[in-house]
């Protein structure tokens, strides 16, 4: 598998150097793997810190900035970052108002953030945590590590970030983050596996004419393999899975997210089918985002995230945000 890289070992560091060059409004610490708002800590503001394995760009570094995250900790490709990074990030963004850790529900992420929270609290930083687990493909039960965090992360980071920007205190930001997560559900499909730099090739074999339903964002196979489906059939399957689980009774935000290798033209076409499927199920959509936001390197495929909206969340969503990947109002 050909990649536009130097050597697999420097992929994350090279990416951070390139991010720094393109975004002078970010402080990028390549050695310690930290991406921080240049104006952090913002006086009186709760700090939002997230992080996770690399390979999901723009998540999370592309979401650092006004109205969203204060810092991101990129790990190696598909590998949760280490506690030292997160503790350092917490120290860098804490203005005294405390820090919220936004954690995707993977064993590694949860354990490392837990350890980081202990380290940060030892340093006198007040820490709250929200664990994002929106992926309905995985049942949350005694027999699994629980539902994964995927596209819902964008909504949690954006909406809690907007609340923090407005000056909400830590407990309110954390409560809101939990509420948003509770209102998010996602479902993903893959048309191809991704290739990690370390492996140098596809992480699994997906024969021609087949697709994976219920995939995660780490190159793992999905819950089920099926014969290839049309965009409309895939939209029905994804929307069914999400709506059956969430049972929305009011307006929703929708994210039609590309896994990285699917052309934007196809993604917009898929959005047309997702909107149709939601409409047929009587779900009113107030805002739609279409693009590559929570990716899995070069994987072809897409995920659908539905997030309950209400007046407060809508106001927060529309408030100014200024990050590398999401920007409006400023």
């Amino acid at each position, binding site marked *: 598998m050909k990649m536009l890289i130097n050597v697999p070992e420097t992929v994350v560091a090279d990416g951070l150097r390139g991010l720094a060059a393109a975004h002078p409004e970010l402080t990028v610490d390549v050695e310690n793997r930290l991406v921080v708002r240049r104006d952090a800590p913002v006086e009186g503001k709760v700090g939002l810190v997230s992080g996770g394995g690399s390979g999901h760009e723009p998540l999370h570094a592309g979401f650092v900035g006004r109205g969203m995250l204060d810092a991101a900790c990129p790990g*190696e490709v598909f590998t949760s970052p280490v506690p030292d990074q997160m503790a350092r990030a917490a120290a860098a963004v804490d203005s005294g108002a405390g820090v919220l850790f936004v954690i995707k529900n993977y064993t590694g992420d949860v354990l490392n953030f837990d350890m980081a929270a202990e380290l940060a609290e030892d340093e006198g930083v007040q820490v709250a945590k929200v664990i994002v687990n929106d992926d309905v493909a995985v049942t949350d039960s005694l027999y699994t590590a629980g539902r994964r965090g995927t596209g819902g992360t964008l909504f949690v980071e954006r909406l809690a970030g907007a609340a923090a920007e407005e000056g909400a205190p830590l407990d309110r930001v954390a409560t809101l983050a939990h509420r948003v997560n509770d209102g998010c559900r996602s479902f993903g499909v893959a048309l191809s596996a991704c290739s990690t730099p370390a492996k140098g090739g596809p992480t699994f074999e997906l024969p021609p004419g087949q697709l994976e339903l219920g995939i995660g964002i780490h190159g793992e196979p999905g819950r089920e393999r099926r014969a290839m489906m049309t965009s409309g059939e895939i939209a029905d399957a994804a929307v069914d899975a999400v709506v059956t689980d969430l049972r929305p009774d009011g307006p929703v935000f929708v994210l039609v997210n590309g896994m990285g290798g699917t052309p934007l033209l196809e993604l917009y076409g898929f959005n047309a089918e997702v909107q149709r499927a939601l409409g047929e199920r009587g779900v009113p959509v107030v805002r739609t985002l279409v693009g590559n936001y929570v990716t899995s390197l070069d994987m072809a495929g897409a995920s659908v995230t539905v997030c309950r909206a209400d007046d407060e969340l809508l106001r927060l969503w529309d408030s100014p945000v200024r990050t590398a990947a999401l920007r409006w109002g400023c």
Partner: protein
Amino acid sequence: MNTSASGTPDPAIDSAFVRRWLSLATSAIEHKSSWLTELDSAIGDADHGTNMQRGFAAASAAVEREPSNTPGEVLTHVGRQLISSVGGAAGPLYGTLLRRAGKALGDQPAVTPEELCVALRSGVDSVAQLGRSERGDKTMLDSLYPAVEAMEFALSSGSGLLAALAAARTAADEGAAATVPILARRGRASYLGERSIGHQDPGATSAALLIAAFAEAAEAV
């Protein structure tokens, strides 16, 4: 000093022993890195080999730099380094295992095989606690618990260090192989449900390598 069946004398369990273990473990992990990643790509995210290799390289370098004079101190140090450099699930789990084991060894310059065994058991228990996992979940615990129990049994039956660690090594290898038919209930592999069956767990495999390195460290005096 106890003597093994073959007549080789058991080595002292001092800081040199632990350093020997670390060096053997580091090179075993390095040699098997692609295999571990291969296993992880079947039911995980294809990074276990690189993760472990990065962590053990960092731990080796750090232990080389710092003079730790007791086996407990070296193990604790390795554990801290793994936490700070591995990431993923394996980092906190292995890191905690070794830190807990190291702390359990206290600050004696040398410990008995029984003390090492108790320390390892408490380390393994802390993995189960942290990971909210148990034997049979298709994780590293499936080679770690059999290893510790084999060691306990060997020591309580009068074996010395060499024999006890050899028994642990065999049990760990068997435990790793026995993860193949298991349906995963913890870690990334659990997302696959039924599709996790038929694959060997990468963490159970790397754990067997680490146990084997203990056996080799005892033999390699």
